[in-house]
């Protein structure tokens, strides 16, 4: 087995570990904890009064814009990583390429800021 596969078998094992930790602890706890269900316990908490309306209500869209911005800049960041580790070899040419790349996206950020998209009012 190559190093590479060992790496990712380990990663898989740790992802499993997270799930197992949760399930094991819940399993042990389920043996110890009491269970005394009453109707009131399963009510949604709303400061001591009966819930008004639906708990699932549409919220404001401003989060959507932040999500959108994030996706775009995340993609940008992903492109930067390979470049970053090879910068020495790519030299001035690579540097210029990346600066152009970043600059174009910075225009987008400036646009968003100037349009007041990031304001909450």
């Amino acid at each position, binding site marked *: 087995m190559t190093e590479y596969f060992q790496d990712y078998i380990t990663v898989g094992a740790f992802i499993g570990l997270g799930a197992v930790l949760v399930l094991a602890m819940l399993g042990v706890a389920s043996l110890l904890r009491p269970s005394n269900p009453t109707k009131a316990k399963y009510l949604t908490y*709303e*400061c*001591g*009064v009966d*819930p*008004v*309306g639906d708990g699932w*209500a*549409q*919220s*404001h*869209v*401003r989060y*959507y*814009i932040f999500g959108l911005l994030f996706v775009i800049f995340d993609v940008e960041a992903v492109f930067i990583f390979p470049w970053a580790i090879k910068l020495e070899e790519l030299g001035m040419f690579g540097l210029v390429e990346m600066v152009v790349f970043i*600059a174009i996206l*910075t*225009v987008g950020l*400036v*646009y968003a800021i*100037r*349009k*007041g*998209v990031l304001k*909450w009012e």
Partner: protein
Amino acid sequence: MLDAQAMAQISETSVAVELETSDMTLNIGPQHPSTHGVLRLVAKVDGEVITDVRPILGYMHRGYEKISEVRTYPQVIALINRIDWTSGYANEIPFVVAAERLMGIEVPERAQWIRLILTEMTRISAHLLFMGSFPLELGATTPLMFALRDRERVLDVLESVTGGRFHPNFNRIGGIKPAAGAGKEQKKLTQDLPAGFFTETEAAMDGVIASTDQLEKLLRKNEIFVARTKGIGVLPPEVALSYGVTGPNLRASGVPYDLRNETDYLPYDQVDFEIPVGTEGDSFDRWWVRLAEIRQSANIVKQAIQKVPSGPLQAKVPKIIKVPKGETYVRAEVPKGVMGYYLVSEGGQGPYRVKIRTASFSNLSMLPWILEGVIVPDLLAVMGSLDFVLGDVDR
């Protein structure tokens, strides 16, 4: 890198970022960590912006105005202690003074000075509580501990005199009650204050002043605290007056109205103090005014303990108190603002009618005005800074 002109073009038109969203009705309270008792706010929120807010009171309504009609005057004093439980002692003063005025009693000077000292210490303890609870609502926990540490000392002193930390029930019509546990001999000799009271008080006041410095250092220039409170919940003076907002909230809006300066219910004219006044009327100013008031009160107490004369504690009053027919409106500056009692006597052992005008009731009545368009996180920065107590609202 960027063409300045291109940037200007980009920013020319403002894009409003909004999609259709539905309002959500959010219940804040009655069982909520920061409603100071049991206030319930029914807020319509769009995202996190409050479009409409309806306060629902009455969870603490105890009907004090009615109960007072069936109690004797001394019993009413014990009752009204509980109106604003953070400043129990100060609540008693205007009622007692109203009864004394109707009876035409001259209260001995010593009793008046002791009343003044205890009132100011009550103010300090109430404001220190605010100094802790307000930052706590903004997420800063440490000021609470600092504030409570020194509040404890003040309460200890209060307790040593009155026997009670929250509900002293120490005033009597015609003067004050002799110190808790004081023997017959002490009553006669006016040794009403416990031994070491003056030095203890002096030390406690120094502690309080040091504590205010500490609190100021911790928050006044704290970028986040300033960003959360400056310009938030601005209350213009005209609006404040039309809603009857009083106390530090009114003074933060720039109106130097303080009853201690204006009426003679206690000998405030014989001590030197300033009235801190805000400029903006925002949450920050309301915090700052209270901080400054703690210092002033501590100074008042320090001056007053030098001035307490010896003499009797009680004027001569009949064993069974009956207040002659008449009516009067007496107000006092309690920590939350103006508290007034409109006392109507028909000559009985108890009041015929008492209208209790409390500060928090009026201070809170402008909540729908000030909260409109505020976002949920600012709700706390506004509500917390108003410093109300639900017992004081509902009575």
